[in-house]
């Protein structure tokens, strides 16, 4: 008796010839011609200069911004089709996004409150139950000493972790992180690399999460990410050998760009 071949799994997020532009400015595209499929279990690292467009591409791929051109499918469903609002909401819950530079926390909430907001909104949990769940998650991320502090009063490194905890509250299947390692010192970088690695394989009994990180350089993600891509002059390129890729924040080919004077 021969075993049936496994059914192909649809990509979680699939971009076809997508052009990403800032919101409200579709005539100013930052990245064009992106063909990208994020499949379950993958860990993508997307590198590029600070102005390369990854801060525009990631929110577009996460469904936050409409693409200026092209097509995006979420969990096999075309995002441009007329969808019921409940379906749109369900899609948003399954895709997480962590913004850079502090994660855009809610300034009127504490750390615990920030993490509990999505639980209280989507699951309509009472305050005590939502905060109990949020506290467990905060403990996992080392945020217990900061729970009752105003979230925006924390140092930036801890704000970034709070944003990560908030995005994980609803157990997304795909998690986009925009420059998570920027402005982090060595010890915090190590924590993030280790945590995201565990998240991608399944953290503490949770299902694995497909992770997509953006950053200036691919080098920190060597040995951590499984797939690599680079944004160069507004074009998307997958990188087969990231170890040999010498494009980083110092310019093409590893040369330091001297200022003109």
């Amino acid at each position, binding site marked *: 008796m021969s075993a049936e071949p496994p059914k192909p799994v649809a990509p979680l997020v699939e971009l076809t010839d997508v052009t990403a532009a800032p919101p409200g400015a579709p005539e100013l595209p930052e990245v064009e011609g992106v063909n990208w499929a994020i499949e379950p279990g993958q860990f993508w690292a997307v590198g590029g200069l600070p102005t390369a467009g990854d801060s525009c591409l990631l*929110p577009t791929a996460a469904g936050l911004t409409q693409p200026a051109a092209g097509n995006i499918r979420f969990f096999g469903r075309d995002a441009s089709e007329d969808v019921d609002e409940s379906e749109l909401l369900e899609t*948003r819950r399954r895709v997480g996004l962590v913004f850079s530079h502090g994660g*855009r926390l*809610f300034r009127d909430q504490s750390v615990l409150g920030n993490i509990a907001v*999505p639980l209280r909104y*989507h699951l*309509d949990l009472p*305050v005590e139950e939502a905060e109990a769940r949020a506290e467990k998650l905060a403990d996992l991320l080392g945020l217990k000493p900061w729970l009752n502090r105003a979230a925006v009063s924390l140092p930036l490194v801890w704000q970034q972790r709070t944003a990560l905890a908030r995005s994980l509250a*609803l157990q997304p299947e795909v998690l986009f992180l925009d420059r998570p390692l920027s402005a982090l010192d060595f010890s915090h970088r190590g924590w993030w690399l280790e945590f995201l690695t565990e998240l991608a394989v399944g953290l503490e009994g949770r299902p694995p999460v497909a992770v997509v990180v953006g950053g200036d350089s691919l080098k920190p993600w060597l040995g951590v990410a499984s797939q690599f891509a680079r944004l160069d002059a507004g074009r998307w390129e997958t990188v087969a050998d990231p170890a040999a890729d010498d494009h980083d924040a110092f310019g093409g080919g590893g040369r330091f760009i001297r200022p003109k004077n």
Partner: protein
Amino acid sequence: MADNVPSAWTIPALRGSARRFPRALLTRAGHSVIGWQETIRDLGAFALITLGAIATKFDHARSLTRPMIRYEIYRCGIRLLPMICFIGLALGLVIIGQTVSLQTKVGAQEYGGLIIVSVVVRELGPIIAALLVLARAGAANVVELGTTRALGEVEALESLGIDPVHYLVVPRVIGMAVSIFGLTVYLVVVSLLSGWLFVFIQDVPMSPGDYFGQLAGALLWQDFVLLALKTFAFGGVIAVITSFHGLAKPLKLEDVPVATAQAVTECVVICGVIDAMFLIVYLLI
């Protein structure tokens, strides 16, 4: 203001004549009409979105939105109670007391109740409460929501699948509407009591029974219904307009005073229009 409408200053043929009074005035009037038309269109769309969120998501996320509504009622209503009571006291002394006192002198005291109901209950009460909430909470709304928008919290809400209108605007609309209604009731009651206090102090020959009897006789059941509708309309309009100006466009720091002033102006104008509409209804009663 529409960008594609040329002004007198950009058309060379008109530049020399732009200083001529009638043409420059017409051009400016035209720009204002176009500007107002766009504002009404955008505000109308935002109001419909907000109404849609209230209608479809009123019961959604109650554990989160109910405390927010209660906080808005506290911020826009309970915190303004002392000021409203003070204004009610002054209103009663100035308007009601003086009116009753003058009417007694000309022997027209039987119209006292009607005048008090017409002036205080139907007109001044709701509009004063609305203007106070606009000054204290409405302007703050523009600044708060503008800051929320500028700091990217709206995108953060969207990334979590949270409807920003449902989370940020709906509690403010409900809170302001309930607050203005409650404050109006307090204002009217305090005004009526302080009016009688003035009458008593001035030794006007009118017994408390006559005073309150006249009021009861002048009040119709429609006054209660229309008072509620008017105050809820004022609260909704103020919340929607101030929220729109805070959220609609990204605000830079230097834009905040301009946006706040524009929001306050629009609120005053639209509340005036609503007041005029209710006046017509009162005249038909």
